[in-house]
């Protein structure tokens, strides 16, 4: 018998279920329990760069909005630094770069305010275009879905982005690029609808 490797196995994922809000956003479940819910303020008050708003829907295979989804966003600051020891450099005081957002129970709309991220290093000396990393969980989603949102006003950077260019089908690349909406109170608004199935199924990543 060959030697054992002695690795542990990752715990298996299970759906976050319909009541994910109790644990991760109890105010939305209808009660107040924690001093502070986490993930409400992504960029903090001192973040430099362009303030933006991002909004969208998660749409299921029937074309209906998913109304019980929870999204998390992970992003660098305007200089392309993540708030992490391996994040590439310092960030502003109060910048966490992580947020948690749930959908409106009636409409399925979600949205958050942040700053536009800067480009970050890719592999082998490449540069990744500015992007938001998104993670989506909900009832009926057995394992969290990872995707990225890129910006429509970064066409040159997007064209050179090493991750976008991994996607063989050019028409599918467009599923990762937000649409520019009307500015609101002087703040640019980006629209990013995520399609779980169908002709325009969003590209998801095994990261």
């Amino acid at each position: 018998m060959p030697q054992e490797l002695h690795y542990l196995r990752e715990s298996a994922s299970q759906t976050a279920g319909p009541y994910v809000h109790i644990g991760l956003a109890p105010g939305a479940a209808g009660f107040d329990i924690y001093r502070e819910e986490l993930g409400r303020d992504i960029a903090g008050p001192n973040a430099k760069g362009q303030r933006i708003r991002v909004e969208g829907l998660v749409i299921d295979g029937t074309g209906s909005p998913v109304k019980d989804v929870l999204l998390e966003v992970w992003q660098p600051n305007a200089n392309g630094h993540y708030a992490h020891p391996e994040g590439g450099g310092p960030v502003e005081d109060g910048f966490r770069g992580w947020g948690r957002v749930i959908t409106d129970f009636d409409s399925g709309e979600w949205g958050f305010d942040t700053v536009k991220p800067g480009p970050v290093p890719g592999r082998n000396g490449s540069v990744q275009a500015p992007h938001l990393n998104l993670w989506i969980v909900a009832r009926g989603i057995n394992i969290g879905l990872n995707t990225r949102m890129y910006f429509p006003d970064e066409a040159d950077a997007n064209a050179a982005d090493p991750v976008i260019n991994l996607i063989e089908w050019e028409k599918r690349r467009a599923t990762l690029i937000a649409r520019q909406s009307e500015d609101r109170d002087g703040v640019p608004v980006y629209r990013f609808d995520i399609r779980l199935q169908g002709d325009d199924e969003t590209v998801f990543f095994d990261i």
Partner: protein
Amino acid sequence: MKPAEYHQRDRSLHPPALTPKYKTSVARSPRWPMISLENTISEITGPRFGHADIDPIDNDLIRNYAKTGDPVGERIIVHGRVLDENARPVPNTLVEIWQANAGGRYRHKKDTYLAPIDPNFGGCGRTLSDENGQYAFRTIKPGAYPWRNRVNNWRPAHIHVSVFGSGFLQRLITQLYFEGDPLIAHCPIVHAIPDRDAVQQLTAKLDLNATIPLDSIAYKFDIVLRGRRSTLFENRLEGN
């Protein structure tokens, strides 16, 4: 020195997106294969949390929402370690849980099950693992409850668990089940997991050594997150 990459996720032990016996997955499961990414800075970094983010009482579900007394139900301790695939502890990582009360009812505006809300039970908690990866919660054993899938489906008693690790690619939500629960064998959500050993790994074990006599029964539940490579010849994230 460049940071080491993480082990690939072993998708064979996780539930696939489409599991038709869990009906809700059918319309919510992507059909195209995922695009596999090698690690970049966007995946190996992730949010970090500290003691300023949470309060000490947050891990005591018997007390963190108590209004007029203790909640009804079987008092339990759930404890264990957050480890990585290399069996190293994952310290200072945020662990969040949520669950139904002893009657199987969630404190949620969308839950309409006929079992009553417990006025003294919120049903959520959070804590940071310590420097050895240890974490602990005190709570009430959740009840089983029916759910709309087929007309006679019941969820085994379970606690939802959310964990971060140190990189966003380690992000994980799972569920804790209890040793000996006969409903585990009948649950379409459990059965979405294709690997029997992986189900066993989500089943907390009665831990008499950690039980507090005349007070609370303990269950042990270790959580394993993805680990990083440690070979001499690792790939580099950057460079030529």
